């Protein structure tokens, strides 16, 4: 453990280390997303932005809805599901910086899956 004369220096150093670690983890996650995107089929999706939110319309023909998982992690929208004939769909979308993943709402609209994410104020 290095020695610091100043407490402020110590804290700054610790924060710097943490930031480095977070960056490393983020890069690893990005690499993993890229790898998975190549392994699975990506569904078609459309993106629409309104004043207050971002909407993603995802077309999942023949989806088995019981296998559907949608989550947001590290400012990314992650969707995975299987089709009734056993194929696998995965989608990874980087969310805009002002998107608030905690506000994510998932619904069915016509034949599409709609994922709405509010903008941070």
């Amino acid at each position, binding site marked *: 453990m290095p020695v610091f004369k100043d407490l402020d220096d110590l804290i700054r150093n610790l924060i710097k280390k943490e930031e480095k670690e977070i960056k490393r983890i983020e890069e690893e996650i990005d690499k993993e997303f890229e790898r998975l995107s190549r392994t699975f089929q990506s569904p*078609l999706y459309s993106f629409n932005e309104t004043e207050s939110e971002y909407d993603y319309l995802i*077309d999942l023909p023949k989806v088995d809805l019981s296998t559907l998982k949608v989550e947001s992690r590290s400012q990314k929208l992650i969707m995975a599901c299987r089709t009734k004939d056993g194929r696998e769909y995965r989608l990874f979308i980087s969310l805009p910086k002002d998107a608030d993943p905690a506000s994510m709402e998932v619904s069915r609209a016509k034949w599409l899956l709609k994922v709405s994410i509010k903008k941070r104020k």
Partner: protein
Amino acid sequence: MTQYEIIEKYQPQLSRPTYLIVGLPDAGLVGVIATEYLIEKLGLKEFAEIYAPEILPPISHVKDGVAKSPIRLYHNHNMIIFHSWIAIPSISIIPIAKIIVDVAKRYNASYIISITGLPIQDRLNAEKLNAYWIANQQDLAIELQKLGLMEKFGDGYIAGPYAPLLTEASKNSINNFVIVVESFLDLPDPEASAIALNILSKYIGFNINVNELLKEAEDIRDRIKGLMTQTKQELPNYALSRPMTYA
């Protein structure tokens, strides 16, 4: 002058007037979903393929194990369908328009009818999809106005594969109109195709059950996912990132 060949299996016998229906991939794949459905449900016969290696990517469409040109011609007694199974590269849309007009002249088609989508912002919540016509000649515009099957598009722009076709057909004194139905831009839209088919069937005078198209929509969307992906990449090149048809 583009070098191309129409490789014919046989010369079809057609009654007059003959209609040439064009299904090229663009907004919502509205046109190709409609023409593919017509080919299947009306049992149209494939009689020719377009071989144009200078303007088309080196892709063959394999059907039942047999490789064919991705652009093929089908017919019944009074209709020819010009259907593309691949997205048309933006640099090829003018030569393709000229080829379509050549096909119309070769088979004495009186009308060229194109089908396309009009992307709208709130397509998801649209209760009713509006349909419009765009004509290439004043007399045809008057005829379409009188028929009242769709509204006049009014003022706006059309870009993409159907735009030069309107002009090419006009230059050659062939009637050409576009059936434009509100749709998604970058997701396949069988609902919009069903509306276009209803209009087309009334205009030409044939029966088609579009309820089946809606029932089969899931299979269709699954099958043409790749074509939509390819088309999505090409769409921005058609009109500098603008939608295909916009008012």
